[in-house]
């Protein structure tokens, strides 16, 4: 067993109101710079729609993620030699126009315009060229289904739904899908980078780009099937969501989560077995990928797992955090959170609770008013087609979606009984295979959603990252005399004689003796 801790996020789509606060705060924190204006490390898409960038899910075109070739896991865009041969021109790059051309407005005319018959207008100006431009596409262009009658059918998740769905007013459906980098367990962007500039952090699984090692080969953008690695056109380097690691390291949630007004995001860690990743990502049937992914996660309450985690160097606060992890609860214990597009074989770590939606006909006044016995048939009549959700979250397996939606409906029905002092229908509980205790926990996490329950984030153990004693006095003013006079090891020479090993070798007591 090769145990690793991994940060994950769950977003409860049932609670998302599509306000874009997450996108805006993320943008203000990270991408409000020249070359990055077009980047939305966090964006909220209205589904159905082609999204950002256009048709990012159409992998025939975009070539992202992994595929099985003769039973072997391989990058869809081609293997190593193929990349080096295409290094002078990568035919599969998603160009900036497929995101949108960033612009600003000519605000000066508003102030400096002479008196005229009409109000002065601030015209849009391209941030790429400074020229006036016509805006034909932009961030979140499809907000609340705008233009869906044209773009809807180009949404790859619509396959198999042609008969059922009409993109006409009052006959359509919609949902919000906030997206960030998935910080995959099997990240194809990392695998695509010829320079080894993108890496996964060993201790917490966060995927980052080393800006000094990026050489502008641009294969990561193709490799990521979620199109969440961006290209800074000013610095010519790849950039991506950092999972707000400076915040995470001190135990704070990411800025998108912190500012979510719907309080729908959850952050925590899970333990998984690195040795089993390749096998799990290589299962033949795409529909088995969700289960294979679940099987990767280790039970943090299992004494054997705890022991392994300790051996691997994880501190007790991390093990405790894994045991309290809302991610583990939602994904493994309650099984209501699902990965986004498991068929990309990336083992993504941002999961989603699918949204409930109004019931189309014959059942009258919505989910809560339905007689308990009518709940299950009603699921299939919800406005968002089960098949659509299945194409998003389970590689097309509608049974898993049904089971999740049933749990969500039963939880409401159960809590309604509890609140009204009625006897809960035990038969319903049996059918969804959940105990009253887990159902209660599901309710607490979804409806009460306490800050401390949503975010169980163990602080990073930076104090173990290096020998802090050695660093003493080596940093400070670099003018005048500086601090080197009082430094422990001013020349940063061999650290052996400053370490425990040396102390042990000359007969001193070390932590092993305690």
């Amino acid at each position, binding site marked *: 067993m090769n145990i690793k801790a991994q940060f994950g996020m769950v977003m409860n789509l049932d609670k998302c109101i599509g306000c874009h606060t997450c996108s805006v705060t993320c943008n203000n924190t990270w991408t409000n710079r020249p070359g990055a204006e077009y980047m939305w490390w966090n964006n909220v898409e209205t589904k159905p729609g082609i999204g950002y960038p256009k048709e990012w899910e159409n992998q025939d075109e975009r070539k992202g993620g992994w595929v099985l070739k003769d039973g072997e896991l391989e990058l869809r865009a081609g293997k190593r030699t193929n990349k*080096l041969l295409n290094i002078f*021109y990568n035919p599969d*790059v998603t160009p900036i126009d497929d995101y949108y051309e960033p612009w600003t407005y000519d605000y000066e005319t508003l102030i400096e315009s002479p008196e005229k018959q009409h109000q002065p207008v601030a015209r849009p100006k391209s941030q*790429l060229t400074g020229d006036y431009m016509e805006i034909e596409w932009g961030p979140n262009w499809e907000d609340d289904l705008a233009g869906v009658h044209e773009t809807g059918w180009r949404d790859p998740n619509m396959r198999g739904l042609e008969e059922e769905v009409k993109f006409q007013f009052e006959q359509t459906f919609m949902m919000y899908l906030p997206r960030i980098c998935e910080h995959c367990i099997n990240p194809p962007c990392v695998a695509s980078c010829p320079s*080894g500039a993108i890496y*996964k952090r060993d201790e917490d699984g966060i995927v980052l780009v080393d800006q000094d090692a990026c050489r502008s080969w641009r294969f990561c953008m193709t490799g990521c099937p979620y199109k969440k690695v961006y290209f800074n*056109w000013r610095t010519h380097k790849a950039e991506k969501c950092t999972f707000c690691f400076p915040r995470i390291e001190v135990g704070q949630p990411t800025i998108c989560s912190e500012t979510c007004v719907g309080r729908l995001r959850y952050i925590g860690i899970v333990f998984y077995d690195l040795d089993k990743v390749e096998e799990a990502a290589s299962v033949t049937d795409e529909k088995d990928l969700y289960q294979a992914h679940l099987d990767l996660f280790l039970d943090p309450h299992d004494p054997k797992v705890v022991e392994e985690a300790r051996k691997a160097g994880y501190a007790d606060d991390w093990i405790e955090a894994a045991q309290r992890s809302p991610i583990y609860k939602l994904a493994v214990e309650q099984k209501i959170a699902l990965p986004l597009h498991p068929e990309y074989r990336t083992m993504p770590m941002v999961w989603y609770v699918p949204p409930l939606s109004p019931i189309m006909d014959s059942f009258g006044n919505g989910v809560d008013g339905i007689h308990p016995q009518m709940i299950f048939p009603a699921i299939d009549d919800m406005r968002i087609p089960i098949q659509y959700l299945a194409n998003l979250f389970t590689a097309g397996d509608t049974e898993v979606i049904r089971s999740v939606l049933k749990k969500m409906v039963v939880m409401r029905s159960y809590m309604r009984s509890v609140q009204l002092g009625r006897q809960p229908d035990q038969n319903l509980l049996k059918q969804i295979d959940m105990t009253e205790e887990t159902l209660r926990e599901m309710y607490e996490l979804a409806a009460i959603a306490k800050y401390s329950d949503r975010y169980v984030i163990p602080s990073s153990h930076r104090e173990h990252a290096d020998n802090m004693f050695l660093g003493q006095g080596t940093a400070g003013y670099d003018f005048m005399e500086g601090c080197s006079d009082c430094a422990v090891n001013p020349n940063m020479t061999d650290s052996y004689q400053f370490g425990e090993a040396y102390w042990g070798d000359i007969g001193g007591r070390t932590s092993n003796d305690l």
Partner: protein
Amino acid sequence: MSTYDQFFWLIYPYLMLTLFVVGHIYRYNTDTFGWSAKSSEFLEMSRLRWGSLLFHWGIIFVFFGHVAGILVPKGFYEAVGITEEMYHFGAVWFGGAAGVATAVGALLLLYRRSTVSRIRINSQKRDFLVLILLSVVIITGFTNTVGYTASGGAFDYRETIGPWFRGILTFTPDVELVTSAPIGFQIHIFSALFLFGIWPFTRLVHMWSLPLEYLNRNYIVYRRMQGKKLTNR
């Protein structure tokens, strides 16, 4: 040997080659962030395609052509039985083809960089300088091979420029060898050396980053906090 000759074929080459070596060390240690291919494909794809492909593949063949013609002594070919005719056939046809590809590629790239406004505006002066200089080097080189040598020019660069350049590299320079070279060759040498001199300070440094280690690397890269690189799988 005039002062003029001594400057152009002795002092200047060493100046430029020193800049080339020291400049790279300096740049790598002071500007790792700027060390990249500076790809502009993200802003414009269709015109880049043929320009970049022709130029890059062409220049690779041109490089090996120079190794064969300049770095490998003429005596070596005679020893292994490659005649003057065979050599020239190869140099003119293969070298010519690679030259055409490289020249067309470079001009396409230059045209793209000057006419596509989002590329032009986001270019640095040195990006233009590199492309213009490359075009000069390539076109003079191409006309030397095809225009001069192939049409029966009496000047044999394998007996003059070759030994001179090898002399420069081995610190036994013989300036006399190149003073009588036709002006086309002299411009080619001069501009190429200038390119070497500015090389470390331009995007050309990406050549040293050709990621061959990728072929043997594990797909997924892990790093620990200590900065130690760990790879699994």
